[in-house]
């Protein structure tokens, strides 16, 4: 199956952008990531990932409005493109297929699975 490669961190960032919808920009994404995954990521790492995703065509961006706490600087607001959403879908289906192929009990149990 041929599609653009999506790294794990990129996938999470892409998903977070999708969660945030209208208000997805650097800091918001970082904070949301922290809340959702408990990962303490640096702003620069998020920026780098966003940048890469935009280059790959999975995100598009436009400049948003400025706030005082930003020293009058505008935000760059990101939204998931069609390619991005398609890629996310594919990744998810692939994962599902893989999960489905796993025989029951072949994974060691690590607690009460309900």
């Amino acid at each position, binding site marked *: 199956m041929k599609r653009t490669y999506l790294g794990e961190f990129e996938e999470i960032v892409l998903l977070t952008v999708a969660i945030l919808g209208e208000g997805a*920009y*650097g*800091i918001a994404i970082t904070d949301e990531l922290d809340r959702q995954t408990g990962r303490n990521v*640096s*702003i*620069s*790492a998020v*920026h*780098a990932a966003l*940048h*890469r995703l935009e280059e790959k065509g999975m995100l598009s961006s436009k*400049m948003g409005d*400025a*706030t005082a*706490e*930003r*020293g009058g*600087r*505008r*935000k*760059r607001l990101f939204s998931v493109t069609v390619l991005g959403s398609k890629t996310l879908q594919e990744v998810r289906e692939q994962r599902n297929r893989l999960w489905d192929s796993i025989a029951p009990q072949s994974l060691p149990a690590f607690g009460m699975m309900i």
Partner: protein
Amino acid sequence: MNTKPPRWAERLLEFFCAPHLLEEVQGDLHERYQRQVALFGEEIARRQYVWNVLSFIRPFALKRKKTEFSTTFLYSPTMLINYLKIAFRNLVLHKMFSSLNILGLTVGTVCCLYILLYVKDQFGYDNYHKDAENIYRLRTNILHNGGDQPMFNSATSSPIIAPTMKKDFPEVVEYTRVLNFFTAKNNLLGVEGKTETFIDDKGFLVDSTFFNVFTYQFVEGAPEHSLDAPYTVVLSKTIAEKLFGQEKAINKRIKVGNNLNTTTLTVTGVYDDSFGKSHLRPSFLVSLNSGGLGEFARNNTEWGGNNFIYSYVKLKPNVNPESVNAKMPALLQRYGGKRIAELGMKKVVFLQKMTDIHLYSKGITNQTDKVSDISFLYILLTIAAFIQLIACINFVNLTTARSVRRAKEVGVRKAVGAFRSVLIGQFLGESMLIAFISIFLALPIVKLLLPFLNSLTDSTLALNITQNLDILLITVLVAVATGLLAGIYPALYLSSFKPVSVLKGTFKFNPASVVLRKGLVVFQFSIAIVLIIGVLVISKQLDFMQNKDLGFDKKQKVVVSVSNENAQKHFTALKNELLTQHQIKNIGGVRYYPSQQFLQDMLVFKSGGTMDKGVLIKNNVVDEGFFKTLGIQLIAGRNFTPADTNNQVILSEKSVKDLNLTVETAVGTQVFTGAGDNIEAFNVIGVHKAYINNSLKDEMTPVMTHYSSQPEYMVLDVQADNYESLFANVEKIWKKLIPTVPLQYSFLDDDLQKQYSEEKTLRKIINSFTLIAILLSCLGLFGLAMFTAEQRTKEIGVRKVLGASVVGITTLLSKEFLKPVLVALAIASPLSYYAMNKWLEGFVYRTEVGWESFAVAGIAIVAISLFTVSYQTLKAALVNPVTTLKSE
């Protein structure tokens, strides 16, 4: 919440972050920062901020986005050609200004280049010897009577010291001693079996280890063991060719010495004396083991006195000379302590690096050859820098003054998209172009003027650009430095014009640039005035020294050398024969005639004293005719008579004073020298009036004069209208009596003048540079005057229409240029007063700076500058107002 993140981190981010990312990144970081401040306080927030900024140093943030629109390619060939074209058009269009600029820079560059050549040539002496950095010469300082000034500061030392050092100090690998034996203008060289001889006084007696210490390039024979055998000699190529022509010199036998019948030497090698620069430039080297004085030196065991030989030691690599110096006092004490105490002296022997000898030997007497002085080189370099600076200032002034003409060009260029940096590049390029044109003009001029310039500095420099890469490098560096120095301000100034005001025609001169221009003119003229005053004071001092009453009559005196043994025998006969010539009035014999250094001295004390309380008194030897011939008065006692012996002495006024005697009572007393059983007594028979034997730079020394009927020099008091016939007769008499030795004579006046050759060179150099500085300053003034006259044509026209006279307008224009010159005079006067007083302090007998030097310099500079601007101002004032006003 008004706290701000650290400023330096902000700057850093702005510096490295790609511009298209900066806004969002900085915004995010600020947002985060504000929240951190609210949550954790400012300190932590700031730390976090810095950390975050640093974490952004990664490829994506550093990478600049390609712009969608291509900017003008600033250095495209088309533009470069355009710059060149415009530069040349400007040069051609304003021929007068261009030639003033180029002329000024060329003259400056000629000076600069020559001085750099000269200074460069003074460095690198003795570098070519193998292990040159480990070779040292022994220096000797002797202090008498606990004085703090060494009375004897010499490049020579006692012969026993160097061999003992090698024996006792493991650091010393090798030593060699060099004896200046053949200097007395009486050393003849000839081939055995032939009668022709010539005089050469640059030979040295040296130890057989000489070539283990020094490196010479041999053309015949080999350096190893060449001087091991007694009575061997190694010749320089020059001498070998003089003696043997094209024939091989090796194994031939030559006669050397002041008595041709005594020494015959075998040639064991010939070296190339044109190779390398050295403080020691021997014309031949004789084995020290060849009898005579060499034998005396070899067997000498004196530790205190007899400091007459040059000693060199080669140390092991990486040995600090200070560690050897530290061991010297103990060595002297161990072997010579008793003797040195007996002589009542304090003696210090220490090492001087061989490669330092040429440039760092100020104040050290008994050098082997002419040495230079690093401070003199600094003076030269300073003057060169100032001259070039004056030339650069001309360029700056003329270019900025004329900037209105280029203003439109700058406006148009900026309007069509030139950046300031491009314009700076363009104008700098133009000044570089002019600098390089100047260099290309200067090189042939330097080449052409070399003989003249060399005569100024007494050197024999050659300009071989193609063979000498470093000279080429220096030349290019001078050009680049000049171009930058001259071009940077005009470039910054011209490129700062605002296109709007320039193109609208409301452009006005920046008043600051006018002030700067005036300031630069003041600076130029200050330098010129300092130099003028310098020349005047140096000339005054030289005149003073020439006319100073030396205490004897120096006019019409001829000195004949009879120091050759063969000649000295005939002293009396020669004297009697010469006196038959009616043009010769008197003849006096003397060992050290005025202008010569006294080489002999002794510690003298009066009765009841001892050696350690003695006074160091120079010794001279004269015959009965000397005082009369030179017109030196005897103020007490009597003159020598042929019946006197070495034990009768005549003291000088100064020695009487130093010995604590009085003129009245000195005659008839005895003075002594020596210690223990070896005390010598002298009967004082007279006292002569003080006369200045040596340079007026030095203090007068006390002198004690002994008697000899046949001293080494004859001073003839002549009264001749026709010196040629006189010398022909003298030569005839000489040939008759002493056929084996050539006649050598000199004028006493010339010999005295030679003592001031250093000052004369300085005067010659400063003279030329002053001329050049004045010329350059006036060139600049001329250009400015021309420009102002041009600028103010309308104003002058209106003034004339309203009734101003030509004189009035000329005065008006001249006044403007006179002001900076007067300010320069006010600045330069105290500066030069201070500098020249310092210079004069180097002379014991000196004139003072004097107000007349300032007056002359002031009047001269005002007159010269008025004259310079007068042409332009008069021209402007004489123009018919109709021609200037009708064009409106």
